[in-house]
């Protein structure tokens, strides 16, 4: 067991899952939310030469996806350090 106690293990897992769910909520919001469900409302907004909803569907969501993964990597590395479960 890499953790000092089982409380530690479940605390690490809780933080991990909560980070994951937060990031997945953003993932859902930019693609299914802005790009599909609310696309008509957002299309009323002009963003440079784009309608905003259309931009999210064909450009914006993809940029956010990349950001989400890198945020996850940084945060998880910090979390591993905090609980001392990083690789050697």
């Amino acid at each position, binding site marked *: 067991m890499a953790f000092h106690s089982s409380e530690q293990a479940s605390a690490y897992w809780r933080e991990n899952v909560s980070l994951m769910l937060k990031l997945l909520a953003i993932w859902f919001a930019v693609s299914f939310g802005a*790009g599909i469900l609310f696309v008509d409302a957002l299309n009323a907004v002009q963003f440079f030469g784009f309608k905003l909803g259309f931009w999210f569907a064909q450009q914006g969501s993809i940029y956010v996806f990349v950001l989400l993964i890198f945020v996850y*990597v940084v945060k998880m590395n910090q979390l591993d350090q905090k609980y001392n479960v990083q690789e050697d």
Partner: protein
Amino acid sequence: MDLQTLTYIIVGATFLLYIGIAIWARAGSTHEFYVAGGGVSPLANGMATAADWMSAASFISMAGLISFMGYDGSVYLMGWTGGYVLLALCLAPYLRKFGKFTVPDFIGDRYYSQTARTVAVVCAILVSFVYVAGQMRGVGVVFSRFLEVDIETGVVVGMAVVFFYAVLGGMKGITYTQVAQYCVLIFAYMVPAVFISLMITGNPIPQFGFGDSIEGTDTYLLDKLDGLSKELGFALYTDGTKSMMDVFAITAALMVGTAGLPHVIVRFFTVPRVKDARISAGWALIFIMILYTTAPSVGAFARYNLINTINGADQQGTLVSETPQWVSNWAKTGLIKHEDKNGDGRMFYSGDDRNEMTIDRDIMVLANPEIAKLPNWVIALVAAGAIAAALSTAAGLLLVISTSISHDLLKRNLMPNISDKMELRYARGAAAVAILVAGYLGINPPGFVAEVVAFAFGLAAASFFPAIILGIFYKKMNKEGAIAGMLAGMVFTIGYIVYFKGIFITPMAANIPANWFLGISPEGIGTVGMLVNFIVAFVVSKFTKEVPVEVQDIVESIRFPKGAGAASAH
């Protein structure tokens, strides 16, 4: 120099490069064959994953589809990128910590069951074959168009090249070859896109040109396209025609399917550490993003150029005597047709009964440099890029098929006592047989190659994804639940697709929105199949035996990175 010679030189040079790399990185052990010795850096791995992922469909067809579908084309853009978020956050690090070679390995061990492993092997082989058949056809089309040979010869040339580096090199060879292929394909995609963006909007960055005004006017490109669409009787470019429900379901099926495709997942076993598995997905998505954010720009530019060159700047139709060169070039292939219905001696393209043109969507990316009158070396470069895209994907898929057969089926199921060396020999033999079958399917495509691509994603979404997610995040999921879930998800998805598409049998109902379940097309049904899988798995697991303690301990141990060794067979 003429186009033919240039194409031979550029395509030939890239081939020498790939083959050279394959020889240099020849695999010596099963470990190197399957997972490249676990010694690939995350950056190289990300680039290889991107090349593996972006197939002939991404390179050749996607921008063309978007150009004709407008907003509806977003399903491919979001669907084929969003899956990487799921992979990075929910799957890759845990599967890497688990430390096995293949997806069926994980399913078999996590669910302590040979039956589960066998179900997973069958799914993996089915999904990969369905996918690779389309790739071999793509290779054949590109070779035959640019080397001016018939399609059979094109497919055979492609088979020989794939055989050479997939069978000799294994994962190690493929990974480094794919790095080279990524560089070739992305360069080939970007060069014409930048030129065309400059010509239409004066902006050198296609992603920005997409939202810029047309050179010399105050009208935004997209507003102009919406205006033209309205005039010509098409749906608005930024609006589309699919129902919201269907767009949602297709996007979800493609995302989840991406995260469940065995040839994508296996990439995350090839990095040395759990940390690297997380960041690999990030690098892969950056490299994919470059092409996927350019594609919709290319689609919009192509749409604008297409309408303008055929209907003329005044939208009255171009005189047949003044037919643009690219139209007559492609008319020879039969992929563009003009029928002068009203006999006015002019061509006209529209979405209503004034239309006189039949245009194949797949030609847009290949014809784009010709439409924009770019020099011959750019056209030759696009050919090399398309071939790189098709070959890299075909090789990755063949590796999954050969691994599934030699490792999951023979070593872990039928003949557990074979030596490492024999296993490697079987793996190469299986890859060779798989290439022959794929080549046969490429030359004699069963009428449904296009339809079965959606099938591959639906199947992956409805079978693997829930089983893997539950295996990691729900300790109490037992083998009965997982097996029942996978079977239910698969049977439902296959049943729905066959019902409307009629693969091997006549369709039982017309494939129209009025007949669909909740308005979801067969392309999007994998999403429902996935939900069926989750529900069945939960219900069955509640009524069957609990998971053994040792297995629960394994699940505990994959949830943190410390102590991850190299991927191993045992």
